[in-house]
């Protein structure tokens, strides 16, 4: 009996990510969910700009590459033109929380029936480890060599907390992928986010606390510990909004 194998929706090609980068885990979870819901043939994914820019090569469903930060806008267009299709975006923190913040907030405000997978690794990975809007206070990056000074650079943006104030958002949850238990919880959240779209409930966003061993300057193992020690205390895990659970509809 096969206990575990590569999901069908995930292409059988080597991923370009650095060793130990948890992007691969999240890619697999998304593919597993697409398989389990049986929607591979009608799913359209929107790839972002950032480390996951080549996500279009890694999923076997249809994929579109959006301009930087504009994945929710492209997803809005696809979903409105093809309402029977399942549309998801896969975005990093530089894409969603920085240049694409306006698109994200307005897609939530309109309660677009799309699913957003948001990877928060507190750094700009692809460009070489610069400070991101989500970098922690005092975090050392290429552009904050003495640590992020909140008096000068401001505070990190907590996307789930912020979007939970928007009436339109249907489902917001923050998860992590730094150990087996959290990966299982992350899959459950991603599945719910896709299920919400199938049921026509509306805007669902899952924020995944992810690691960047290369740009954090750590081993993959140490990076996962750093998530537990530094990131989760600042970005608490949990459900930030779930309208259907509260019966607010």
């Amino acid at each position, binding site marked *: *009996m096969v*206990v*575990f*194998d590569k999901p069908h929706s*995930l292409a059988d090609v*080597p991923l370009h990510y650095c060793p130990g980068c*948890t992007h691969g*885990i999240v890619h697999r979870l998304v593919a597993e969910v697409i398989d389990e819901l049986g929607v591979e043939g009608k799913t359209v994914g929107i790839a972002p700009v950032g480390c996951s820019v080549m996500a279009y090569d890694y999923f076997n469903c249809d994929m579109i590459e959006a301009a930087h930060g504009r994945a929710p806008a492209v997803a809005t267009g696809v979903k409105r033109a093809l309402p029977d299709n399942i549309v998801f975006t896969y975005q990093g923190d530089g894409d969603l929380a920085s240049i694409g913040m306006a698109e994200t907030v307005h897609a939530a405000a309109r309660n677009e029936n799309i699913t957003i997978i948001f990877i928060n690794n507190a750094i700009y990975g692809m460009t070489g480890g610069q400070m991101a809007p989500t970098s922690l206070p005092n975090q050392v990056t290429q552009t904050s060599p003495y640590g992020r000074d909140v008096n000068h650079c401001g505070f990190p943006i907590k996307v789930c907390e912020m979007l939970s104030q928007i009436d339109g958002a249907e489902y917001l949850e923050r998860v992590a992928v730094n150990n*087996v238990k959290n*990966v299982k919880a992350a899959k459950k959240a991603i599945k719910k986010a896709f299920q919400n779209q199938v049921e026509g409930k509306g805007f669902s966003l899952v924020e995944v606390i992810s690691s960047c061993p290369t740009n954090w300057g750590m081993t993959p193992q140490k990076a996962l510990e750093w998530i537990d020690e530094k990131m989760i205390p600042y970005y608490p895990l949990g459900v930030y909004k779930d309208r259907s659970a509260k019966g607010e509809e």
Partner: protein
Amino acid sequence: MAKLTFKSDKCKGCGLCVDACPKQVLALAKDKINKKGHHPVEAVNEDACIGCAFCATMCPDCIIKVER
């Protein structure tokens, strides 16, 4: 007994599976180098494997197939 299959040429030797295994079944092969230039993971103690698939759950590159 569980059976593990690895796509060794896709392994990047990050070792996350090694740490996730509760039975110390896995280790990085220090005497081997794969196509990508990494030391790939291998099962050094496959008899102890209980088929929990924790290794595959943590593998970012989806190279492990678990059967039992």
